[in-house]
């Protein structure tokens, strides 16, 4: 089980409170986690990564285990603590603007 924390606006859009819990088949990567997230919450399609290019939207960042994973390969394995549910995968809005 993977734990994901969404930014507040996307929690509202997905009609969830607190963390989201996902079952991910195979290795836990950014791509597999986001695939599972979008499958469970289709209204989030396009809001975290571009519909076509699948690139992370530039004002969103991916953090976990006190590390910035935003620039890691989307197919790189996430830390074991994330894969096992010990730590959440954080999707965070950039602080700029508002």
């Amino acid at each position: 089980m993977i734990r994901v924390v969404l930014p507040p606006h996307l929690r509202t859009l997905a009609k969830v409170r607190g963390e989201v819990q996902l079952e991910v088949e195979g290795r836990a990567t950014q791509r597999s986690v986001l695939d599972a997230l979008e499958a469970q919450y289709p209204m989030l399609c396009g809001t975290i990564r571009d519909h076509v290019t699948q690139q992370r939207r530039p004002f969103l960042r991916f953090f976990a285990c006190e590390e910035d994973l935003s620039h890691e390969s989307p197919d790189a394995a996430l830390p074991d603590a994330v894969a096992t549910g010990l730590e959440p995968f954080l999707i965070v809005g950039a602080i700029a603007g508002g």
Partner: protein
Amino acid sequence: MSKVRVLVGTRKGAFVMESDGKREKWEVSGPHFAGWEVYHMKGSPADPDRLYASQSSSWSGQVIQRSSDGGKTWETPGGGPGKSPQGWPIGESNKFVYDTSERTGKPLTTHQFYDGTQHPWEFKRVWHLEPSLTDPNTVYAGVEDAALFRSTDGAASWQELSGLRGHGTGPHWQPGAGGMCLHTIILDPNDSGRIYIAISAAGAFRTDDGGATWKPINRGLRSQFLPDQDAEIGHCVHHVAMNPSRPGVLFMQKHWDVMRSDDAGDNWREVSGNLPTDFGFVIDVHAHEPETVYVVPIKSDGEHYPPDGKLRVYRSRTGGNEWEALTNGLPQQNCYVNVLRDAMAIDSLDSCGVYFGTTGGQVYLSSNAGDNWSPIVRDLPPVLSVEVQTLP
């Protein structure tokens, strides 16, 4: 007694305001989609309880919302739990993908960027939603970078009408200060094949075959920022308005100049007349008097506020050229708000109501065609758009 419902999009959410035909007491609901920019909301003429809304943010992109109960509840129409035959989530309602197909999308490559170089089309947001006059499930979307999309399934999925970008002038289109946006969509009530659109900064276009082919309709426009001032393409049209009883007559607020066409846009002539400045964004036409036109003059392209700190709507009862200032109830000192291009609307009650919203968060109403004004609300986030529905 008839009712009115006012749909207000703001920089930080949407608001729905309802009143009876007297338009004196208002119920205000919102903010809907709190924290998101709502560029536009509009109701279906065929089913007034069917509303569409465009919410977006720099963080999370574009989301389309739909209501089937007049704005009480909302849904993301493509957001069901199912999957497509390919196994992808159904969440297609937020998906605006430019046509790059071999058959129709091949020539659609780049447009002119601010610095004059060519730049690929990149989807940013939906500026305007225009529901079909006859089918609640059909709705058009004008987007940035400029293109026209259509949904025929209640906004669950979208397809580009790529003939607009494909007629050959696309490389000469360029963004205005607000981006390269398709912001105006007008459906001809007498001819289902005729649609007018306008783009900043490309100009106005018309299709007579339902969107398959398009022609620029900019003859008579002049723009000092163009090397060829009366070029066919490149004008920064801010808004176009039409009275449904006379669909061949169009009024335009351009970057500078207020214009009029009596032949469906084939030719334009300036009708700025005695306006204190002919820069502005909004323009609209009285519901019952097709020669009565409203604008809100703004000082200049560099100073986006009313001249002399006085918020004045100007009305022409002669189809342009002769304008009178309407000031009763509007601030006449120290007012430096702007009125954006989609932020004026007209109801169709017997005593015609005129509405507009400001970047200062006020939504003003005149229930007597502009003679007197009062605020419905005055402390919203900056207002991006105002629409009104006249309900039975």
